[in-house]
């Protein structure tokens, strides 16, 4: 179809009768099935995204409790509260939880929830895969905590260096739990990423050309591309490790006696592990850009530069992994190359900071909780970035590596760079979840206490690292003189706990009794704010035609809307990659229980692989039938024919399209 035809089509106008008629049809077409089966089988990206965010916050709480236990143990020298066994399980689970089960999924969850809304569509490209991804993530997470509760939690660190995690030194099934958890959550991440990329490429509302995509959407796409190239490394590494460990398989990938190489594990792990940091951080920068734009009441300063910085960070993020291995016996020359890239990654991040500062400088502030969290983000993250520069220096890193200085550094980066913006984003988007605002006063208290607590916990750790305290020690001697600063840090942890409690109480209270929010309480610019809160399942009654980079700010009362989509099955407009010109109508599948079934089989297969390699063929046979059921019910369902109104033409050429019956 030629573009010219489209502009001719714009002449029609909508009548009230048609609007009401179509609304009724949309409501029934896009609704979930009833009951528990309906709950399990939903393909609504908003429900799945919210579940993902909610689950991730649950894991955040568990991970936080574990952190609190560690701080209790370390508050006094020679403390006997946790033994080394428990402490090692706890710090491993804390790290793995926060990285694999909180930070990445929560950012994906926000993406799953908001990306389709921001680009003006009703669904992700592959809605059934989406729910499959959620379940595999959930099973992976439960597996890890199941292990910890039974006192067989993994205890080789979240990085699981061989040989400590190998068959010889990693006893029992502890490390296997870790590696299967990793595989399951990475499957979930890969699924979500593919989904988000295709959605943003092909389902953007007409008119949203590449230079108009909201920055949060850019950040999610760029992150998703990073996931696609980073996560396979850790999936392979953990699968190979579990094959090494499985007694009747006993491969030798990391067994140095048989030609394996323990350093290869570090390469594989950090080839994933460093991009992982940016996989967490880049979506957060998207959130920062959104919040700063909305709350400084002006267009974003340096949009092109901000997109560039995310792309550049994504690339360079893959070229710095060896700085985690600066103290391994590799040649200094080769390592120095990574000093260069690790230092220059500061440049894109600096550009970002400068653009945000310029937006703030030139704007008029609407100083609400989300923006206050962003100010906290500046205070914390910039320092984390600067200590990162220190760690990038090969000689200096030999002193700082694996000490509490590094612990301080990456908590500044991850809590500062991701959790502060995330909290800001939750305060920002909460009205979209439930139609009510979070309490402002409690929000400010939360932010200030969290900030103070954070600085109390982590600032002293810089010093602890410099005066010799290594990471991952379950205790230390009184003679070391580390006691005071550790006590200070533990007190700070208590403050952080109080701050987080305020947040949870605020969230629960506001969910039910908070101030009712208008559709766009902050006067924001992206399309999700044009929707009523909470958002109906079909999201957009009519998909918009986007008029500019700040869609709502630049929308006029007469901007056209998309019509002519099927409303008796789930259909959205699919547009071209570069300029978002409509090219076809894309029908997606409705809810199905099969993704749940398939994820149960997948979970069982991976858990079985801890014990026997036969779980692989058996699981694949089961998966075959699972997917058969899935695909069989995959074809676009035709509901009872919807009688078209006069100005709503019939779409299907019966000769062209063979209708099929809804199965399963």
């Amino acid at each position: 179809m030629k573009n010219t035809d489209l502009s001719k089509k714009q002449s029609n106008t909508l009548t009230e009768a048609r609007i009401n008629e179509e609304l009724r049809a949309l409501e029934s077409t896009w609704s979930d099935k009833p009951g528990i089966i309906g709950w399990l089988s939903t393909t609504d990206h908003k429900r799945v995204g919210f579940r993902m965010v909610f689950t991730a916050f649950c894991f955040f709480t568990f991970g936080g409790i574990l952190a609190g236990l560690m701080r209790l143990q370390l508050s006094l020298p020679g403390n006997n509260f946790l033994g080394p066994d428990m402490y090692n399980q706890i710090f491993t689970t804390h790290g793995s939880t926060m990285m694999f089960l909180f930070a990445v999924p929560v950012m994906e969850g926000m993406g799953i929830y908001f990306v389709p809304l921001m680009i003006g569509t009703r669904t992700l490209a592959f809605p059934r895969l989406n729910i499959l991804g959620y379940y595999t993530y959930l099973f992976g997470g439960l597996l890890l905590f199941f292990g910890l509760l039974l006192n067989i939690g993994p205890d080789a660190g979240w990085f699981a260096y061989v040989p400590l995690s190998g068959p010889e030194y990693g006893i029992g099934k502890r490390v296997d739990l870790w590696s299967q958890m990793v595989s399951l959550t990475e499957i979930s991440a890969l699924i979500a990423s593919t989904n988000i990329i295709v959605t943003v490429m092909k389902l953007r509302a007409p008119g949203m050309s590449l230079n108009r995509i909201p920055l949060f959407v850019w950040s999610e796409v760029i992150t998703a591309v990073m996931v696609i190239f980073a996560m396979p490394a850790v999936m392979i590494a953990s699968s190979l490790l579990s094959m090494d460990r499985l007694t009747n398989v006993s491969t030798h990938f990391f067994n140095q006696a048989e030609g394996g190489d323990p350093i290869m594990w570090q390469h594989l792990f950090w080839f994933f592990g460093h991009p992982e940091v940016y996989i967490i951080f880049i979506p957060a920068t998207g959130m920062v850009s959104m919040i700063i734009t909305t709350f400084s009441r002006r267009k974003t300063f340096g949009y092109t530069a901000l997109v560039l910085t995310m792309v550049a960070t994504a690339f360079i993020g893959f070229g710095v992994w060896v700085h985690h291995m600066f103290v391994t016996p590799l040649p200094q020359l080769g390592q120095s190359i990574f000093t260069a890239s690790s230092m220059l990654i500061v440049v894109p991040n600096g550009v970002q900071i400068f653009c945000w500062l310029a937006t703030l400088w030139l704007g008029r502030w609407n100083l609400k909780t989300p923006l206050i969290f962003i100010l906290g983000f500046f205070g914390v993250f910039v320092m984390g970035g600067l200590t990162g520069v220190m760690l990038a220096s090969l000689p200096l890193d030999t002193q700082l590596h694996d000490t509490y200085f590094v612990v301080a550094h990456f908590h500044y980066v991850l809590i500062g760079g991701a959790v502060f913006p995330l909290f800001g984003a939750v305060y920002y988007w909460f009205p979209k979840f439930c139609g009510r605002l979070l309490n402002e006063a409690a929000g400010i208290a939360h932010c200030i206490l969290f900030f103070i607590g954070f600085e109390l916990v982590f600032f002293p750790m810089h010093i602890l690292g410099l005066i010799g305290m290594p990471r991952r020690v379950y205790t230390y001697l009184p003679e070391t003189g580390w006691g005071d600063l550790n006590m200070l840090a533990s007190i700070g942890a208590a403050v952080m706990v109080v701050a987080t409690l305020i947040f949870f109480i605020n969230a629960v209270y506001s969910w039910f009794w908070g101030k009712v929010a208008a559709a766009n309480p902050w006067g924001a610019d992206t399309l999700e704010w044009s929707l009523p809160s909470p958002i109906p399942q079909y999201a957009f009654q009519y998909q918009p035609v986007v008029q500019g980079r700040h869609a709502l700010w630049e929308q006029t009362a007469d901007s056209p809307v998309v019509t002519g989509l099927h409303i008796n099955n789930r259909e959205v407009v699919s547009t071209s990659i570069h300029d978002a010109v409509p090219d076809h109508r894309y029908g997606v599948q409705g809810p199905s229980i099969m993704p749940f079934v398939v994820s149960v089989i997948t979970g069982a297969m991976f858990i079985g692989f801890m014990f026997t390699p036969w779980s692989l063929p058996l699981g694949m046979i089961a998966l075959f039938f699972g997917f058969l059921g899935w695909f069989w019910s995959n074809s676009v369902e035709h509901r009872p024919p919807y009688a078209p109104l006069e100005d709503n033409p019939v779409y299907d050429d019966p000769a062209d399209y063979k209708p099929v019956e809804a199965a399963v």
Partner: protein
Amino acid sequence: MTRVSSQLKAASLLASACVFFFSCGHGNQSAVEPTGLQAEHLSFLWWIFLAITAAVYVVVMVILVAAFFRTQRAAAGDEADLSPDPSREKRASSVVKAAVAVTVLTMFALMLVSFRTGRALDTLSQAQTPLEIKVTGQQWWWQIEYKDPTPSNMVTTANEIHIPIGRPIKLELVSHDVIHSFWAPNFHGKKDLIPNYPTTLFFRADEPGVYWGQCAEFCGFEHAKMRFMVVAEPQEDFERWYAASQQPAPEPVTDSQKFGRDIFLKSVCTQCHTIQGTPANGRVGPNLTHVGGKPYIASGSLPNDRENLAKWITDPQAIKPGIRMPMNTYSPEELNALVDYIQSLK
């Protein structure tokens, strides 16, 4: 809010600076109180980085605080600024461009300083003949072997490295089980000991004293209690210590000590421990030939006195859970004699 947070920030910076310099008072395990050539280079590098990054941090915070005071306030309902004043935008964009240029230049400067330091650290390895010591990381203690052309003159000890000041030391770092990392911050940065990857570390001590180091790579249960002591002393003191360490263990003198030796030699202890001059020649655990003269046992985690020694012998799992040394049951008299004997091994 910003004002509050920035004041807090300043206060916390000040407070932590105080704590920092206070903590530096007893820095015998500190990266910023170097007592060797290499650590001095590294510490110098650290202060350069700290100065520059702190300046950057202050500038960013000042801009943020200034923006807070300077900008107008708005409400959610206020119309957003879609076509801002071009001249202001242009000025801001020049400032941003300048800031980016400065960032790039700063990074290059820091890179050059780093590379220079890297080269400086490497020069010592070509200097005069070093003292060669082989350090083997084990779960969870350090075996120290002083290389000597005559094998019988080799000194083997554990968790305690004596070095002469002013002379380059070459450590050969080896591990046969899991990955450990050797770190004595007052002398040099750390180095990983990876199975199959033997490596070396050069450093030099410039001031006499007792310094501490610790395993820095997570290596299992007792990673926290895998410490070692570095005694830097004048050449003559070192030679005296070295000569004494080459001697076999002193013969027991008192009856109790003799009884203790008999207990030791009849027990499972000999399967893991060596005492030179006796039939005990196990290689699994630390060499005990001169253990009585050491200030610490259990890899630097327990002061070496009668009470601790007794506790350690009877129930090491209570002190370092997970280690390979089993519990031992002795009557009080036997234990007393055993401790007497071990304490006599000076």
